[in-house]
């Protein structure tokens, strides 16, 4: 008898379940999807991943700014496995390709920013970490931590960067966000040569310090090159330590200069000793390896990376060129306000410049009469053949305050100011793409639309240097990482008419 009751019970349970289902539906709105009680494994994700591998994406109909070649009107760009496989006007789109229509739009390589901080690493917009009273956040791994562990593929600052076209950035690690070259608002006041006495209102003339200034230990600043591949951790880290970055103060003064020369001498000695050691080991002799100085220093001496430093006045710039020539390393100069006065010397010294056209320096009255910054620096550099990259005044993303518009989101505008200063649009676009890529040693991978390069591309709704232009789509490594209409972090209106 007891066993006979089981089917009835089962039936009751089923009925109860059905009732429960029905009653639960009563409380959800009609348009809601029905619940899935047990977590079902995703059916679509796996096969989609596999077919992604050999899938071709075609960007069709846009004006393609290749940077290395002429503009291709109504061109086609084919992408496969994250690389550009074909570029041209008469490129057939293979069957089954995903087609992105860029008719009437502009296709450029993704921009490369050399001065960024607090983007894509711990301490960015979502990461946390301490916040400085001055307003910047720290970025980068905590002490003793590894950079790979501190990457944040969901940092909102990456979206803001993508939204203005930056697809690759050189991120300063461990530093706070600041005006580039370590300047902040307080120092702006010190810049003013004519301070007035608070009690009598008379001008206080600047005097030399009485005691010699203590030398600062030159510790290089750390950088890493990151792709803004939002949501994709594995493709983010491109390169660590692309420079040996010493602030200008680290090379000023006799003691600093002595330390610097000595460090380089030791690095050179290490390379020689290492060669001797390897020879000795090959010959089967007993030998001890030489003590290694910092890896970056060795790479600097081997000319694998450049010294990145800042030099504002023409005297400082000449000094840096001379020192680089003497000690034999590659040079990248930031903050070179007076580069226009010595463009030929920069060209001869094979130095590269990181230019911020809207950054200013006033000549010191009585000391320098006709120096100071010039909007025309870009034209002088172009004429002399000095490669320059565009950087913004603030190296972080800032949505408010006085920094708004001069932060990373103004990078294309900054390039437009280079054009205003007299350089060609082509040079200005190269200063956003190919030149910084070269400075980072990544010209084989990024910086132009060429076959075999990474598919880091922008689709713009206007010419690249027009202030009205918005990035419509940003593609990093063949993946769409930003869509203006979906991400809605910048205005999404449609401009009426041409």
């Amino acid at each position, binding site marked *: 008898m007891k066993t006979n009751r089981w089917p009835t019970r089962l039936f009751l*349970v089923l009925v*109860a*379940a059905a*009732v*429960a*289902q029905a*009653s*639960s539906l009563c*409380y*959800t*709105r009609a348009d*809601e*999807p*029905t*619940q*899935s*009680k*047990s*977590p*079902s*494994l*995703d059916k679509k*994700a*796996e096969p989609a991943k596999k077919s992604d591998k050999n899938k071709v994406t075609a960007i069709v109909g846009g004006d393609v700014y290749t940077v290395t070649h002429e503009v291709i009107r109504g061109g086609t760009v084919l992408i496969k496995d994250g690389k550009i496989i074909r570029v041209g006007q008469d490129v057939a789109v293979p069957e089954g390709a995903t087609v992105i229509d860029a008719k009437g739009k502009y296709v450029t390589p993704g921009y490369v920013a050399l001065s960024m901080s607090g983007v894509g690493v*711990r301490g960015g*917009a*979502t*990461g*946390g*970490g*301490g*916040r*400085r*009273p001055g*307003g910047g*956040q720290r970025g980068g*791994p*905590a002490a*003793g*931590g*590894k950079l790979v*562990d*501190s*990457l*944040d*593929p*969901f*940092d*909102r600052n990456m*979206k*803001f960067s993508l939204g203005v076209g930056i697809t690759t950035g050189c991120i300063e690690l461990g530093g706070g966000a600041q005006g580039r070259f370590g300047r902040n608002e307080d120092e702006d006041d010190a810049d003013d040569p004519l301070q007035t006495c608070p009690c009598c209102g008379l001008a206080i003339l600047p005097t030399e310090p009485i005691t010699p200034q203590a030398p600062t230990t030159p510790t290089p600043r750390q950088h890493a090159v990151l792709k803004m591949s939002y*949501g994709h*951790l594995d493709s983010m880290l491109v390169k660590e330590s692309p420079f040996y970055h010493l602030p200008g103060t680290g090379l000023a003064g006799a003691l600093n200069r002595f330390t610097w020369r000595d460090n380089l001498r030791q690095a050179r000695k290490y390379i020689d000793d290492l060669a001797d050691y390897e020879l000795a080991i090959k010959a089967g002799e007993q030998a001890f390896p030489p003590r290694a100085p910092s890896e970056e220093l060795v790479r600097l001496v081997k000319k694998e990376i450049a010294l990145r430093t800042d030099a504002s006045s023409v005297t400082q710039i000449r000094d840096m060129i001379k020192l680089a020539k003497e000690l034999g390393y590659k040079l990248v100069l930031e903050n070179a306000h007076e580069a226009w006065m010595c463009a030929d010397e920069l060209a001869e010294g094979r130095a590269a410049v990181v230019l911020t056209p809207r950054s200013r320096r006033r000549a010191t009255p009585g000391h320098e009469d006709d120096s100071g910054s010039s909007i025309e620096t870009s034209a002088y550099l172009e004429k002399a053949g000095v490669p320059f990259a565009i950087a913004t005044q603030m190296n972080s993303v800032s*949505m*408010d305050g006085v920094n708004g518009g001069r932060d990373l989101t103004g990078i294309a505008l900054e390039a437009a100011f280079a054009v205003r200063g007299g350089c060609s649009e082509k040079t200005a676009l190269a200063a956003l793409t190919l030149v910084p890529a070269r400075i980072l040693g990544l010209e084989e991978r990024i910086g132009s639309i060429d076959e075999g390069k990474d598919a880091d591309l922008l689709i713009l709704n206007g010419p690249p240097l027009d202030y009205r232009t918005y990035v419509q789509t940003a593609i990093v490594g063949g993946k769409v990482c930003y869509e203006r209409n979906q991400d*809605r*972090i910048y205005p999404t209106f449609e401009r009426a008419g041409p």
Partner: protein
Amino acid sequence: MKPRSIVAQAASLCYTLLLVAGTAYGQDRAVAYTHIAIETAGKAGRIEIGTLVLRGGKIEAVGANVKLPDDALVIDARGKTIMPGIVDPFHEVRITGSTIEPPAQTGVPGRRGGAFQARPNFVAGPFTRVADNFYPYDPGYRALLRSGLTSLNLVTNSYGQSAVVRDTPDVPDRMMINPDGIVFTPVTNDSASLDVVRSALDAADRARKGQAVALQTTPPTAGDATPNIPPGGRRGGGNRFGGGRPGGFAPGGGGMNAASLKAWQAVLEGKTPLFANVANAAAVVHLLKLLEPYKDVKLVLAFNGPGLYETIDLLAGRRVRVVLHPDVSTASNTRDRVVLARLLSDAGIDFAFSRRATPGDQPTAQEFGLFAVAYAVHCGLPRQTALEALTARPAAFVGLDKTHGTIEAGKTADLLIFSGDPLDSTSLLSQVLIEGRKVYEN
């Protein structure tokens, strides 16, 4: 730890026997609630008008047509609704010396920059067994009954092994259900926190393969002598009993002792889940990558805020479960409102609600009751899922699913009686029963 847990289990068994015998408390006599709406949170779903029979601290029968036992005390509860007691799968308590203290806020109040809430730097402290530091006399536990919380998985915001307790502050000896709970650890995108998981799983893996693992001997923890967990709102509290810092290892939690090794072996073999208190979406990606070689690990992500929605596509293909606050909140740096619970539900990801209230937030958390859950339901989360996420699912997460979480015959009578629909903000929680005994009445 073994003798301790046996003693605890023996004690618990004794109490259960007493309970069944009906000499301590609970009713020998059956109690029947009739004409009551029953949210079973189980297979039976909602029973509009039903009968519920309790006996000896357990549910004897439930259904629309249940024959009343002859000896039953019958309570006509017309218009009321009964649901299982709420299980909080991630209830944070403070233990001096093993809790991450929030850093001082340096942002200027009122400025938009203040949105960058200073998070604690996720540096895990020493491995701390919550059960060893359990302090049942804190007044905070009584307050939780007002919110309908009957079972709690006690964790800290740092690193250790949880303890599962029932919220019966009047009978402190009966509170502990499982002193050997679940391993929890904070994870963010930095090496310090990821290395805790890496090195622990590595050690557990080596131990499984029979290789030697260097164990640190545990200094006697101060918590053994002077238990000091205040769940209530005292910041940095717990010092009043003179409780020192629980002895342990260098910050970073790298060292293993016998207790932590045993707990991590259970994690490695999938016997207990791993509760990762993730700080942001990036931490999820790093953690999933790190757990790839350990196929048996059952991951539960405890997450505060809406940021997890970024990783839903990643989670959908895996057996990852989520503990979240039911809040509908705004995604960072956007104006997008995110109903994370609904997104998870639509993607078929198993999740449970936790109030995720830090000790300081308890008073606020208690004022709003189930409003956040009701709002999530209003935003499209299926109602049944919402109720399960408060009861049955968290019970399963913390290993209580055989005894708690649903209203089904044979389960423990941990029940909440509301004056109306629990998800209606005008309803009042009128009674809380734990093991059939009334522990709170409004």
